[in-house]
């Protein structure tokens, strides 16, 4: 079908699956006959350069399968089970998934560009909204990178408060994961239970930081405010309640035959595939690799805490579920140790160039007023340099690569989002499974689209 418009416009004379009103093109999944061998191999989930026997043999990919046996469907971006605005194009034969192509970018916010426009003091507000399930982790990695460039050491109490908040955040993130994972597998009660527990942690965050989440609490130089009086009792109540209820989740899910059938053996991943695809976090640990930055490259106060690194065996969905449930219990164990070991002292560094003065002193002292003014309008200058700081977020290795040019705004702030890299594992997990297993696999990868798209 040719028309006069051939030269200027691309004529679509075969069906493509781009939505008519959206502006999509090459990011989509094309028909099998239009895809070359290498692309087909990738979309089927074959990972190159692995040892023989572990990789999908290209001769096993049936290029000549007639196209009327398969169907390309679109899943998302508005979908209840894709954990945010993830779009998946799937090629199905019946209910069996053959090829997958994730298309992201539906939540791209230009946060790295915005990070270059905001000062280091304001930067935490921007970074915290990337991985909105674990905002403290984003703020911490940003602050750690800034402090490394500044060459300052934060006081002990600030380190321990940060560790406490990070572990509480891991708790709330994993509880929300249990809730949404349960919901995706059909258990609405798990959704309610997860949110009920999470509300306790949220109200503690609101008491300490002022906001339920996306709190601008961890800042370069320490934390924004001290813990409130009576925080030990609040945290103890959270720990006791969540630990007791985590055994209720065992009753609800772990032993239940339908749950086990739906998760065991589904979405299996091997350690070689995970390492080749740069996967980190619970996804990597479920394959058997005991890599946890809190243990292997300790930061903050993790060197002084006693905890286990949970490792799975088969790399399937059930391993990841059990791993995260065990990590909830390990976090509770760590939080109890932090409550015992919390030192007294300053909650932020007493350097007047970095930390704003307390509000009361502004009326009394002219220097305090000037420092306050300079910090909040111009920001503090950071010496030239570059640094890569990484911590273990609930989803994997969260890194911040920051380049400074000596001014008060970062020259380049790049956040290595673990979900962005972990999503590459989806074609592997989904291949050969049913469509309902696809929902379970996406959920067990635990993507947060805010840090995928940034």
């Amino acid at each position: 079908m040719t028309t006069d418009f051939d030269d200027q416009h691309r004529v679509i004379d075969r069906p493509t699956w781009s939505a008519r009103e959206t502006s999509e093109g090459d990011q989509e999944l094309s028909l099998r006959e239009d895809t070359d061998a290498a692309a087909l191999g990738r979309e089927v989930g074959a990972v190159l350069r692995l040892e023989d026997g572990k990789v999908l043999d290209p001769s096993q990919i049936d290029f000549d399968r007639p196209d009327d046996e398969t169907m390309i469907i679109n899943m998302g971006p508005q979908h209840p089970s894709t954990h945010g605005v993830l779009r998946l194009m799937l090629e199905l034969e019946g209910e069996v998934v053959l090829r997958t192509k994730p298309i992201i970018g539906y939540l791209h916010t230009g946060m790295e560009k915005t990070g270059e426009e905001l000062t280091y003091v304001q930067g935490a507000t921007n970074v915290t909204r990337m991985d909105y399930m674990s905002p403290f982790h984003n703020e911490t990695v940003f602050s750690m990178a800034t402090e490394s460039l500044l060459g300052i050491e934060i006081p002990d109490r600030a380190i321990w408060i940060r560790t406490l908040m990070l572990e509480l955040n891991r708790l709330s993130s994993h509880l929300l994961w249990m809730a949404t994972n349960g919901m995706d597998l059909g258990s609405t009660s798990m959704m309610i239970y997860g949110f009920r527990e999470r509300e306790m942690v949220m109200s503690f965050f609101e008491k300490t930081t002022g906001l339920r989440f996306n709190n601008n609490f961890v800042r370069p130089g320490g934390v924004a405010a001290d813990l409130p009086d009576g925080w030990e009792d609040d945290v103890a109540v959270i720990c006791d309640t969540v630990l007791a209820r985590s055994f209720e989740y065992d009753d609800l899910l772990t032993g239940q035959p339908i749950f086990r059938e739906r998760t065991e053996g589904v979405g299996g991943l091997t350690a070689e595939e995970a390492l080749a695809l740069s996967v980190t976090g619970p996804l990597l640990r479920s394959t058997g690799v005991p890599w946890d930055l809190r243990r292997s490259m300790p930061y903050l106060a993790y060197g002084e805490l006693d905890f286990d690194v949970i490792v799975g065996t088969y790399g399937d969905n059930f391993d990841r579920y059990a791993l995260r449930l065990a990590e909830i219990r390990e976090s509770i164990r760590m939080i109890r140790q932090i409550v015992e070991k919390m030192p007294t002292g300053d909650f932020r560094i007493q350097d007047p160039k970095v930390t704003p003065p307390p509000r009361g002193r502004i009326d009394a002292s002219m220097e305090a007023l000037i420092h306050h003014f300079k910090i909040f309008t111009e920001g503090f200058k950071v010496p030239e340099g570059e640094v890569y700081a990484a911590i273990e977020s609930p989803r994997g290795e969260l890194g911040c690569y920051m380049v400074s040019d000596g001014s008060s705004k970062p020259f380049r702030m790049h956040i290595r989002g673990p979900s962005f890299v972990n999503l590459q594992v989806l074609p592997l997990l989904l291949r050969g499974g049913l469509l309902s297993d696809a929902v379970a696999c996406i959920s067990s990868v635990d993507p947060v689209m805010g840090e995928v798209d940034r």
Partner: protein
Amino acid sequence: MGLEDLPHNFLTGRVEDLVKWARRSSVWPVTFGLACCAIEMMAAGAADYDLSRFGMEVFRNSPRQADLMIVAGRVSQKMAPVLRQVYDQMMEPKWVISMGVCASSGGMFNNYAIVQGVDQIIPVDVYVPGCPPSPETLMHAILTLHEKIRTGEITKRRAEGRPLEIEVPSSSPWVPGNPQAVQIGTPR
């Protein structure tokens, strides 16, 4: 077709009240959670801030079955056509709550990637401030929407060319465009 063509008299006035009561008691939202506000929306639907007491705990996944679109989160340039498509697929009567500052005005992200306010694309009934708005704020917005449904008009009034919305006299302290029953603050 439908109620809009009926003239307003004593009987249809009662019918109108019944229809408005039915409409505001079971507003079913479509799942349009985009970013952080989606988590607060889910928390509003969960146990502690129960949306089920307003009849709204069923988040319909298909826009064809939904009445309300709560745009929860920042709308990027790539997502904007999808948003419009989902809104067009909803059936009348439909309402839109723009939840959070990112959906209302672009929020803290005034850059190339974010649509500066979802009302550039779809008409919005209620704007909710907050980053993210706490579930109580979202519930206040939902109650405001219920007031708007309760005080809106469906059947035709006698005077020709009379607008469907309640006219606010110019001497009133209310901002033009808001139904009179809704104040800034808690609805009475």
